[in-house]
């Protein structure tokens, strides 16, 4: 079905660009771009313009009392460099996000594999069950973890009641550990679905061919299935890593002082500290760092995959 559409539009594109001027109102591509205009305006007004203004704000100076001087300076970035506390928290956020991404992808892969290859008739139910928790309020799921991990929480009180422990376990809440547990739970669906989609696309005759040529199931997995599913793994990694570095709710509710992340610092600058330019500089710095790390990671993986192929 979709093949048909492509052929159709191909012909349209070819004949369109051959016979009619691009600027003529009847040019099909031109009306296509016109129809995309509302979306582009929405994204420009609500996303790009605010981001540009945020970057500009990061070069302003805070005068205190909510006043700012709008001459462009590097003062805020100098502050970030001078005080090692900021760099430490940015690094911690990146470390936590990397842990979360690794754990989530590792746990999600077998489930995605199971639904793609083992489940035959009940795929719909499995997919529904996987996506349902993701759609429930993120705030409430994080709050639930706070209740579960707390000093007097579900796990500790449960274990004490049964008599396994006498003293509550103190490493559960307000530690980087709690942030990692909560985030890797919250982002599971974002790992499972892309990996499932890329596994589902694999041509089964390739798997049969590998088996016919004498690959055992383990060899076949590492030489055929895993490489072919890498696009899904990469997508999952990017989709989880970038937003979790900047997550606010989880470190705020379960992180404690040791689990604070960069988003909490940024929020403080826009809230209590009331130093918007510094908060903007922190945002820009962390976005840039995350973008660079992600690009390096993706290109490294692509190169590695190209080499083993």
């Amino acid at each position, binding site marked *: 079905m979709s093949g048909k559409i492509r052929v159709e539009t191909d012909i349209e594109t070819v004949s369109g660009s051959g016979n009619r001027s691009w600027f003529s109102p009847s040019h099909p591509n031109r009306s296509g771009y016109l129809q995309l205009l509302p979306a582009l305006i929405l*994204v420009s007004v*609500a996303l790009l313009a605010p981001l540009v203004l945020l970057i500009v704000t990061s070069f302003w100076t805070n005068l205190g009392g909510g006043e700012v001087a709008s001459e462009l300076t590097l003062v805020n970035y100098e502050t970030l460099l001078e005080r090692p506390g900021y760099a430490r928290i940015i690094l911690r956020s990146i470390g936590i996000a990397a842990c979360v991404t690794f754990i989530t992808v590792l746990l999600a892969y077998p*489930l995605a594999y199971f639904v793609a290859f083992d489940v035959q008739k009940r795929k719909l139910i499995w997919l529904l069950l996987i996506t349902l928790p993701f759609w429930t309020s993120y705030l409430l799921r994080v709050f639930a973890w706070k209740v579960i991990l707390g000093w007097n929480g*579900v796990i500790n009180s449960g274990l004490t009641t049964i008599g396994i422990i006498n003293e509550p376990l103190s490493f559960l809440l307000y530690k980087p550990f709690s942030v990692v547990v909560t985030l890797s739970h919250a982002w599971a669906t974002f790992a499972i679905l892309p990996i499932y989609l890329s596994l589902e696309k694999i041509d089964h005759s390739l798997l049969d061919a590998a088996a016919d040529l004498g690959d055992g199931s383990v060899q076949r997995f590492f030489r055929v299935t895993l490489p072919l599913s890498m696009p899904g793994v990469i997508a999952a990694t990017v989709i989880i890593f*970038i937003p979790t570095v*900047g997550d606010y709710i989880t470190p705020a*509710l379960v992180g404690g002082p040791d689990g604070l992340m960069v988003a909490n610092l940024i929020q403080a600058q826009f809230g209590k500290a009331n130093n918007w330019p510094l908060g903007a500089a922190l945002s820009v710095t962390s976005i840039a760092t995350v973008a660079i790390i992600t690009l390096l990671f993706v290109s490294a993986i692509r190169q590695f995959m190209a080499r083993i192929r």
Partner: protein
Amino acid sequence: MIQQRGHVGRSIRLMFSSLYLLYLYIPILILPIFSFNDSFYISFPLRGFTTQWYAELVVDTSIIAALKSSVQIALVTALVSTFFGVITVRPLTRYRLRGERSILSMIMLPIIIPELILGISLLVVVNEMGLMLGKWAVITGHTLICFPFAVAILLSRFEGFDVSLEEASLDLGEPPWQTFWRIIFPLAFPGIVASFLLTFTISFDEFLIAFFLSASEPTLPVYLWGQLRFPKKLPSALALGSLIIAVSFVVVAFAEWLRRRQSLQKVNI
């Protein structure tokens, strides 16, 4: 032999997947259980059954006000983002446009940008332009994060279209608007309903952007956030949370069923 090993592998995967799925549901099940517990403390052993935390909700007028703003914001957001989704998805599937992929990734960008960044950058704009914080600011932010979901949901629906139906209608002399209304809209209807329900849920549940932009008219999640600081309020926060979860479960299960039923049928045929 290989057959047998395959069976073992499959049972291990089934066991792992079931346990993992159970783990995904534990936090969501904990809240309702303790919302009926007759104690201020959220800990075992359970003290006894009560509905008093739910009764407290009904008499709280600020909850009703927060619920009202949440519903208003979510309704407008769902309508606007689904409408933008429909008009955007059509040219994306109908034409083959140069730069289509980059346009699509730009649309999808708000999914991976941390909500905190979206929230503060909109806050800066509202402040610089001298605009008012409140419902309209929240709606703008929510439309931005819901729009990519609407596009993704609708794309899968629109891609399955048989273009010849549309062409037949145009050939038979129906004007484009009529063709849209009588051919495309009915075919896309399940996708449109799913998009509306899911974007409604996203907006209704969203906390961080609303936290920055809602000012003196808190939405339900922002109100709930305020309650979490007071230990005495925790049980009724649990009750409120359980209600929110129950409602989104029903809405989303229906929307997902509507959406996936269609796409799976297509694969099977």
